[in-house]
């Protein structure tokens, strides 16, 4: 059984997302890609030890940020959205800069419980 891998936007890394936005949630078995994984990449990585990647709580981390939509008569049509994600997870420490496979995550120190993730979670719409 694999757990969720969350990938966040490393602060000041030049990604198109807001710093610390949860860019992507992947199945822990999945390699995010060779350009993503070097330590100089713009992403941070953390496994959630007690959640699957398709757990609704985890999937919700990729919700778009609705707070800065320009209103229109039909909100689905042509709206401008300035932010990317509603939720940010602030991962502190250089260990999160390097992706490792799931079976090495605990040893590498890039594994957290859902409760620990919630403690560093920011909801832009809260």
């Amino acid at each position: 059984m694999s757990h969720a891998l969350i990938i966040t936007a490393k602060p000041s890394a030049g990604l198109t997302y807001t710093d610390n936005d949860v860019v992507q949630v992947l199945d822990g078995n999945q390699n995010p890609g060779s350009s993503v994984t070097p330590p100089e990449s713009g992403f941070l990585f953390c496994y959630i030890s007690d959640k699957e990647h398709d757990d609704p709580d985890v999937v919700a981390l990729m919700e778009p940020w609705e707070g800065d939509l320009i209103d229109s008569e039909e909100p689905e049509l042509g709206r401008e959205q300035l932010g990317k994600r509603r939720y940010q997870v602030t991962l502190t420490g250089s260990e999160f800069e390097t992706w490792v496979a799931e079976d090495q995550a605990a040893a590498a120190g890039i594994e957290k419980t859902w409760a620990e993730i919630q403690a560093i979670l920011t909801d832009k719409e809260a």
Partner: protein
Amino acid sequence: MTTVITKTIGPSGRDYANFILAEADVESIATAEFGSTDLVANDGAIVFEADAGTYTGRVFLQSTLTTDATRNVTYRPAAGSEHNGDKSSGVIAFSQNTSFIVHDPHTVLDGLVIANTGAYCVNTAGTAAGAQYRNCIFDGSQGTTFGVVFLTGGTVADPLVVENCVGYAVNVNTFYTRSIVDSNIRIVNCTAISSGTGISLRLEGAASKSLDVEVVNMLSLASRNYQGTLNHTVTGSNNFGGSTNPFPAAIQGSPYPITPTTDTDPGEGDFAIFDADTGQLINDSDNDVINQGIGPAANSDVPTTGIAGGVRSGATTHPGAFATLKSLGPAPIIPDAIDYGMPGGYSVASILFENSTTCYLNGVQKTVLYPGQDLSLPLFRSTSADVNKDLVIVSNTRPNKQILLHNYSWGHAGLDTTQPLYEPMLSWFTAYGSAVEGDGIALTTPRYIGDMDRTTPLEVALPPGKSLALSFVSFPSTPPNTTLVAALTVTYEIVDAGASSTFTNHHATSSGGK
């Protein structure tokens, strides 16, 4: 010259696992490769090539890159990962709620299958002037809300462009244009396949905004075809659809209206006969829209290739996304398109048996002709008698055309030359039952296929409905693991056969030996 940086997307061993991660990195790619996010000033472009597969999740294409029509970001399939017109193949991007939201100007989506079950396959924000969607399949067949492809924005200089695309819709608008901002949109050679109350092309204007849409060679395979409301302007030509909610008369093709059908024997009337799986038009004498579109020689906005390859040329072409027709007969190996751009004025068809799934042997589809594979068993070789078989390599399934075969060559294309080859065996060309390439080939000592490279003139005319076969005789002494022709190139020309020619399906059969 623009420097193009290519990055890969795929589930294993690629730069990015999916589109979301790739898009997130475009600014850092630009900065690392070109020095800043200004692709125009740095004369750079970024191309993402994705492996075939399904990629889930909504993708925001929204960055601070500075782009123009050629210095931009393109998302397309890697070589070999194309959809070839099939919405269940290739690179499939899926999200339950809007698969791509395109904010970035000049974004290019090329050759993707974009599927959705919520609101829109693609939602184009008003900021995305110059965005281009080419050769894409927008699959809203599982039910979207609002529409399948939403388009607002674009300028006179940088219109939104949708070309060679197929859209599937159920009860919603397939190509939905709306002037949330002033909009200039061009839709060329697209096919809308819709059921229920959906409209193939909707122009929804607003009193205070402009909405200028050019639509050319659209093929509407739907019960409702066009609707324009409030302030809008539509221009273009050669669009085909039915009589309910018809295209405006000024932009209709001829004949109009047509009835979309998958029935190849539809009876009296004007029909667009299409393949139910892809929307590709079928080569059938009852198909009234064949070559009724305007071609690239008469309208430079018409793309010179189609969604699944093939070439458009000349003053006319087929409406819709496909440049070629689907043939119901055997062995549609020669492309439909007429390309007189080759030296000598001919086209060249490279027929690689190793890639062929449409080789026919005595009218039955075979897949045995793989290099290095046992050709003689079980089809060919008898231990007690000579066996003669014809491989149909070309069938002229084009009514009113004939194919002039000028010459040919063949080669081994990397065969395992340690294997026994064709000796003793005979081979020659047969056109509709008569041997036409004079001497056959009979060797007394084994030779490698590469030794058979040749350009013996054929100069054979294939009337409509007739076929060219590569014929073989095997003998009881033919080795059981014989390998044969690996690649065959035929130089040909397609010409009018005259109004009196008729089309009848034809399968070559055994010619009885040399």
